[in-house]
């Protein structure tokens, strides 16, 4: 499923770009969020809590912190509101996130 209508965010679909998800190449579109691109690619588990429970999309508007992933080496990125960019390195986050 690709998210096209969103109550808060506006998607202006641009050109097709590629990024990596846990090291594998995935395609998405410029103008959509990382989470939207992953969802369209069938990825629903975005992180695992420190009790090892899977976490996915929840509020989808940048409030709830359920979609934290590691993006370009940085933890706790809210992928539901982070615009997708060419060549991004996106990884499943495990635990609470590191800042060092």
């Amino acid at each position, binding site marked *: 499923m690709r998210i096209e209508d969103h109550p808060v965010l506006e998607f202006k679909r641009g050109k097709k770009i590629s990024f990596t998800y846990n090291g594998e190449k995935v395609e998405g579109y410029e103008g959509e969020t990382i989470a939207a691109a992953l969802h369209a690619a069938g990825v629903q588990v975005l992180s695992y809590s*420190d009790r090892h429970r899977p976490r996915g999309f929840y509020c989808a508007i940048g409030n709830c*912190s359920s979609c934290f992933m590691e993006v370009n080496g*940085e*933890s*706790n990125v809210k992928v539901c509101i982070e615009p997708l960019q060419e060549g991004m390195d996106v990884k499943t986050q495990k*635990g*609470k*996130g*590191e*800042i*060092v």
Partner: protein
Amino acid sequence: MVKTAEVVIIGGGISGCAIAYNLAKKGVKDVVVIEKGYLASGATGSCGAGIRQQWGTEMNCKIAKMSCEFFETANEELQYDGDIEFKQGGYLLLASTDKEHEQFKKNVELQNSLGIHSRMLNLDEAKKIVPHLNTEGLVSTAFYEKDGHLNPFHATEAYGKAAERLGAKIYKYTEVTGIEVENGRVKKVKTDKGDIETKVVVNAAGGHSQVIAEMAGVDIPVYSERHQILVTEPLEPLLEPMLMSFSLNIYCQQVPHGGFIMGRGDDTEPRDLRVTSSWQFLDEMIKTATRVLPPLKKARLLRQWAGLYNMTPDRQPIYGKVDEVEGFYLAVGFSGHGFMFGPATGLLMAEYILGEEPTINIDMLGLKRFESGDLILEPSVV
């Protein structure tokens, strides 16, 4: 609501609940706690949750040590069905001036003489405990590994439940509206849910202690100062001990949940009992925190709040009776460390009220000390 009680304690924070527990444990029937909100809804629940024994006065050291030792076994002692989350990661105190370094040396000497095995650490040694510490501008540090963190809500709940099991009654969402004094004796506590006749009233009202004292016609030399505090989003473990600096004006600790809790003092803060938050606090707090622990630049702020420090002139608590009103007792003026002193407050006040041999003599912390002006000032408060 009951009509009479042997003892009425005003305030359902750690002090009030610990006093109730200790009185009930010693066999006092009809102990009542009156709390305006929920348990720990005042100063206790808004505090920085630090447990420290590295103090600068003998009494503060003794009271803190006794309390800390209780916390070590509190889950069992209080038969708590939860966990008070006592984490002894230590306190690392940072000296940034030579004067502060000298003060720390004096404090450590005093602490050591009282069985608190704190020690001075140089900056390299401090770095081993906190690898990400920015030591620039620091002179030395003092450390004690038995200091730490404790969850104020769980700790108060643990005391409250234990007190209730022993027969004490806790009335939440009940506000004291007056205290009746007759012929120099406490007679009745009035609340918005009814009145309770009693001969003993304990003022454990934290940030509102002066308001309660006034109801009994007693003027106490305390004021409440707003202290602000914030917490970050939870992060993987990065900081084991509490970091604290009096000269830089910061305390900061990563709690077991993963969030960093930090606060600072500011004597220009309002003294009108408000507990609102300000952006100015955030601005200053963040500058200091990211200077002391640079990785925090990447941490996101989750929320901020504020609580009241009930300040005395010497920053030591006031324990004991009030001469002009018989039956009116004070456990007030904790100056920002009432939570960590809770167990001692509970036991010592119970002994005092019942006229028992005290585990620690608290006579020098009585209200009278302010008349003579013979004060020993606590130098180590943020």
